[in-house]
């Protein structure tokens, strides 16, 4: 059987390249009934902020062609609640639990990261500088180099474990931002977060989300995500984690061929809660069929002649 392990460095070793994406897999617990979640390469838990957030009003979700728009808006009970209530419940899962960290100010990012740094069984954080669903912070940090740099720089000082930086696709030049982020000491980058989109009901003339715009995810965005992963992997040396519309093992492998060292599965979890284990199995089969000894050989292995 192929070696499925992936070393993303700075303490983040995955038993396989398949992680679940923030905001789509709860705290892992929600999926425990369906399969043994310790089979996963990693779980990125919900976006966590300095203090409790109510998120956006209803409606927060609408289906779109081969995708969905969401406007959750980082609803969570804050980092202290995470540390006290949730961490004890999930800390013993035999997989990598990463906390997705968000904030409205650089200080807030720093504050959350510092607190997570204390948690022994959390090997890393995913810095979310790309949430399109909050008025302040979020995506604003991820759409220009100086602001992205400011966040990473501040967090790097207080957080010594693995920092994965989650990039926004809503930019002219994602490679430039990835490059800047790498320069500040990010250990890896993950992309893409959702594309900013919108939907209207022609009959009622009303927007279908309370916030008017929201984040687009699912297979519809896959071609854009794959392109960005490819562009970013050309310019950075740190590992790239690919996501956006992955529904099956072929999709996952395409992201790896484009340059990803590991992948995340988001929206697909809603349609098939077992999708992540099926993808792991499918990658295994692919390696078998194509005589790939170690899955890491697939990273960047697209053939362009």
């Amino acid at each position, binding site marked *: 059987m192929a070696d499925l392990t992936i070393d993303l460095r700075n303490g983040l070793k995955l038993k396989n390249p398949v992680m679940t994406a923030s905001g*789509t897999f*709860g705290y892992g617990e929600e999926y425990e009934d369906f399969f043994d979640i310790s089979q996963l390469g990693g779980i990125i838990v919900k976006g966590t902020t300095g203090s409790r957030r109510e998120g956006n009003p209803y*409606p*927060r979700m609408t*289906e779109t*062609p081969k995708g969905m728009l969401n406007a*959750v808006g980082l*609803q969570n009970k804050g980092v202290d609640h995470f540390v006290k209530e949730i961490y004890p419940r999930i800390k013993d899962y035999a997989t990598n639990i990463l906390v997705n960290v968000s904030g409205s100010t650089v200080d807030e990012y720093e504050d959350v990261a510092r607190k997570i740094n204390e948690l022994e069984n959390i090997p890393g954080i995913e810095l979310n500088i790309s949430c399109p669903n909050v008025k302040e912070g979020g995506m604003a940090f991820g759409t220009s180099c100086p602001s992205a740099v400011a966040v990473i720089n501040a967090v790097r000082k207080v957080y010594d474990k693995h920092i994965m930086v989650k990039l926004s696709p809503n930019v002219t030049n994602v490679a430039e931002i990835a490059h800047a982020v790498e320069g500040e000491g990010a250990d890896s980058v993950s992309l893409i977060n959702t594309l900013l989109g919108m939907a209207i009901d022609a009959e009622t003339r009303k927007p279908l989300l309370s916030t008017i715009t929201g984040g687009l995810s699912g297979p519809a965005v896959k071609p854009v995500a794959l392109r960005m992963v490819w562009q970013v992997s050309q310019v950075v040396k740190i590992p790239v984690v690919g996501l956006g519309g992955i529904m099956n093992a072929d999709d996952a492998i395409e992201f790896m061929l484009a340059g990803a060292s590991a992948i995340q599965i988001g929206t697909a979890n809603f349609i098939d809660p077992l999708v992540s284990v099926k993808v792991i199995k499918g990658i295994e089969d692919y390696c078998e069929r194509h005589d790939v000894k170690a899955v890491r050989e697939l990273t960047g292995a697209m053939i362009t002649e």
Partner: protein
Amino acid sequence: MKKYIDDFVVVENRRLNHEYVILTLQLDRELPEILPGQFAEVKVENGPDTFLRRPISIHDADYDKMQIKLMVQEIGEGTRIMGGLQKGDSLNLVYPLGSSFSEPDTDDVLLVGGGCGVAPLLYLGRRLKQKGITPKFLLGAGNRNGLVAIEEYEKVGEVNVTTEDGSAGTKGYVIHHPLMKTDKPAYGHVYTCGPEPMMKVVARFAQKHNIKCEVSLENKMACGIGACLCCVTDTQDGRVCTCTDGPVFDSTYLKWQI
């Protein structure tokens, strides 16, 4: 409660009228415990324009036969595909999901339903009856053709109906029925599911008379299991998920303007 993902097989598709069907679904092993008011997230196959699962209430469950029933109102592509399923087709469900109607402290209960909201009330009624409580139903529809599968409800309790055009039962909305116009309601617990305006008048009536009232909310859901936080509703505790804290709520817990 433990959640399952299972492939059921359609053993019957009973068409009630131009927009309603009842699907009888067979499992190949014992059903897990399902509480009244809970729902399933149904995977719609072969829908060119559907993507996410669709939430549908458990209409009935038969543990001996290892079957459940779904009552589906065809309003869009997903429900139309379900309505077109045939004997032998397979249907993937994530279930049982969400909160359930509570057990009453009284023997006199009223179950008020409208539209596809009547669906969970049959299973609720059946469970109440098993506990020795004979429920009263109050079911509303536009006209007599909209009163679907009424004979099933009659097997379980007393059925009262209203139709907007008066073609059956009392003319008007459920609120116009004598059961809801009395000053001394002969019931101590009301359960309701249906269009929100209907549930609100029922809740207002119950509050006025100090009767416990449980409502089952609809919502747009992506996951149905509390993972995505898309399906919130405003409550005394702030925004909570309809799919896990609900769909059944005590009406006074909701921040309804009633």
